[in-house]
């Protein structure tokens, strides 16, 4: 029997397990395995190896699920507690932006009056006015960053360090 036939048979034995075979390939392989002891033994070894892999059992620590459930519930409580704070923060930001838009003409008049009194150039006044608008966003970013740092510090002790 030619070497190519054995090579093809061994490839099909693996393909049968990985991707599955077309009917024609399966028929050809079955016929070959009936005639070829070497390839048949290879197919049996593959089947034995996979059976051994499938039937291998691992013992799970008995309290692992309950310990995990406890930790998950604790973390869920932490998240529930932090959610209203975050919602309040976004509400405060939204309110301050709405107020900012509504009061923009008056605030600009104040800036103009301040420029008139101090003689500051218009560009400085415009930059000041723009910065005034970024204050709520800056405040929100700072609060979120601080919260992020705090969370990452809390999580460090949970990380596996062994």
């Amino acid at each position: 029997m030619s070497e190519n036939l054995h090579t093809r048979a061994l490839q099909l034995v693996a393909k049968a397990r990985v991707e599955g075979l077309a009917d024609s390939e399966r028929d050809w392989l079955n016929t070959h395995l009936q005639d070829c002891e070497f390839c048949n033994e290879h197919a049996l070894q593959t089947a034995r190896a996979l059976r051994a892999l499938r039937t291998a059992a691992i013992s799970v620590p008995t309290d692992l699920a309950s310990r995990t459930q406890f930790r998950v519930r604790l973390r869920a409580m932490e998240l529930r507690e932090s959610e209203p704070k975050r919602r309040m923060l976004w509400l405060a930001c939204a309110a301050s932006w709405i107020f900012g838009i509504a009061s923009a003409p008056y605030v600009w008049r104040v800036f103009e009056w301040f420029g008139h009194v101090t003689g500051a150039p218009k560009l400085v006044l415009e930059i000041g006015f723009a910065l005034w608008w970024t204050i709520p966003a800056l405040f929100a970013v700072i609060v979120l960053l601080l919260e992020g740092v705090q969370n990452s510090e809390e999580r460090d002790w949970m990380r596996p360090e062994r």
Partner: protein
Amino acid sequence: MRDESKSIARGLQQRDPDLLDRLIEQYQYRLFRYLMYITADKARAEDFFQETWIRVLERGHQYDGKSKFEAWLFAIARHLVIDWQRTKKAQSLDALIDPEQQKPLQIKDEIEPSPFDQVLTQEREEDVQSSLQKIPAIYREVLVLRFQEELQIEEMAGVLSIPVSTVKSRLYRGLDALRGALQGGAA
């Protein structure tokens, strides 16, 4: 399956604690086994097991229910292990194995046959475990996902973040390595 995935997705979005308790119970064996195979360390597998479920709680809103829940779960677990490895500057999943600390995995026999059969079975399973540890981790991982977890190749590609063709080539090589390792172990 799709309905179940959708209901899990809805529950995770609401951070339903009862659903999470049920999922932890339901997937404890499969997740722990997967972590054991990729870390080869029981204590680490336990840590990553807990951390994975915390991530599931925190990132539950990202699961859309379009794919199998277990594929998403394994992807989270795998990323945690890889992130941890990066902080430790390890080169590959095999770097997680400490030969000094490595012990044969404990084997549980669920059928409870005769003591003689138990000894034979345990020896055979210990052979399987020790043979598996000889296989490079990237192949061990695909073998576990395909032949123990019975994931489809496309699902595996999602879990591993690699192309389908790479999954297939790893499976072919892994199969060869497994057969070789078991033959070597039996010899």
